[in-house]
């Protein structure tokens, strides 16, 4: 005789547990599926190297060494000489800076048959300059110009008839150069050339060629 077992009826609490598990599994699978879809469909952005935005900008100083040569009446009486200088400036914009430039150079005089030859003479130039920069990654080129004062250490050029006013005079001019960033955020090096007009040395001119190290704070 067959005995029919009574059919087990589903307990409501058990049903609720099963439903919760099913929901979690579906949620998990949806999350994983979403992540996988993102990895596949969107490629990572290419790293910009070097990134000029990471270079320091703002207050900066420069130290420079090089040479100064005179042309015109002063050039006939003063030999080219060694120069050392410094700049302090501020990057107003990425491409625009203002700077103060101080440069000292030492020379020997050329006086031909006159007794004032072979005397040491120092020149000091202080100028306020503006600077425009065009950057190409690690390299940049720049142009700059300004005006200021020139002072001579002695009255020798006055005695030789070159200097119109005693030892101090006006100067104005400009130049340009190339800057190479070291990628260490603060430091860069470069070379520059500048040509300045010296009003009180009978409108002589001087060419300044230097190499520099720049530190941006």
């Amino acid at each position, binding site marked *: 005789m067959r005995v029919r077992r009574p059919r087990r009826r589903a307990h409501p609490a058990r049903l609720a547990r099963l439903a919760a598990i099913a929901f979690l599994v579906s949620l998990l699978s949806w999350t994983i599926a979403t992540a996988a879809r993102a990895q596949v469909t969107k490629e990572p952005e290419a790293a910009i190297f070097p990134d000029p935005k990471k270079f*320091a900008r703002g207050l900066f*100083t420069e*130290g420079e060494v090089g040479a100064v040569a005179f042309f015109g009446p002063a050039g006939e009486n003063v030999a080219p000489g060694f120069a*050392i*200088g*410094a700049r*302090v400036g501020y990057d107003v914009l990425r491409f625009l800076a203002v700077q103060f430039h*101080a*440069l*000292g150079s030492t020379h020997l005089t050329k006086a031909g*048959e*006159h*007794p*004032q*030859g072979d*005397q*040491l003479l*120092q020149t*000091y130039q*202080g100028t306020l300059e503006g600077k425009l920069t065009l950057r190409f990654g690690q390299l940049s080129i720049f142009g700059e110009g300004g005006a200021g004062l020139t*002072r001579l*250490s*002695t*009255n*020798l050029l006055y*005695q030789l008839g070159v200097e119109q006013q005693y030892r101090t005079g006006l100067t104005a001019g400009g130049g340009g150069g190339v800057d190479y960033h070291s990628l260490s955020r*603060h430091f860069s090096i470069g070379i520059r050339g500048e040509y300045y007009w010296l009003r009180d040395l009978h409108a002589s001119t001087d060419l300044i060629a230097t190499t520099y190290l720049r*530190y941006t*704070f």
Partner: protein
Amino acid sequence: MRPSAPLRRLVWLALAAPALACSLNTPIYFNGPTPLLELQGTEMLPRITNSVTLQFRRPNMSEQTALDDESAALKMEDPMHREVRVPWVARDKIHLELLFTVKNLDTDPGTFDVVVDGANEYTKYDETVAAAADAQGKNDPPEYLPLISLHPQLPMMLAPGAIYQGVVREDDFAEGEADLDALGRWMAPFESVLVNRSDVMPVGLDNVPAHVVTPALVEVDVTLTANKHMTCEWTLRVRDDEDRLWHITGDQKFHPAPTLFQPMPATNMP
């Protein structure tokens, strides 16, 4: 990022260096008067002289007080308590050097010499006056003893059209200034003092106080002698350590009144 302290010091040093340099090695040059010294070589006495007198400012109150105090200290130190004035234009504050060019304009070679006399704030030395005084009572031609010379390097022969450029250095001036002070203030025998270098043979300097402050020249007289047609152009280089040269219009000028040195006439020994 804030820069480190050593880096900041380095930056300040770099900025201060040009300003510091402005105060170093700043000689002032004074050209000799024009026209240049020129001799034809045919003169009876082929000698010609021109001069530059340097102008100094007067010491201010504190500087004068310091000079007086130093003078008093030297007087106290001196065994005979003599007046040992400290000069305003002192040799250790004013350093002179003479640069000159001699050119032979003749068609024949000739001999030339360039010598320097001058005055400090107490005494003036003129070799012509000294030679004339020394020659009194003698039948010999006058013997010129310059205060500063480049002997034995000069006199020398100069070829036609040739140029000689020479320097009477600061140490030559220092020697001449010591000699002039010894003659003027301390009664040194002038021939012995002028002929001998004091650092080699300090003859006749016995009366000079031990720590005397030697006066510098305030007037420089350059004499050219030549037996052919020659010119001499010269420039005086002055290093003024303590800004004593007069150059500001408002400053009062220092007006020394040096006494002309005249040697005692030679006495005939029995």
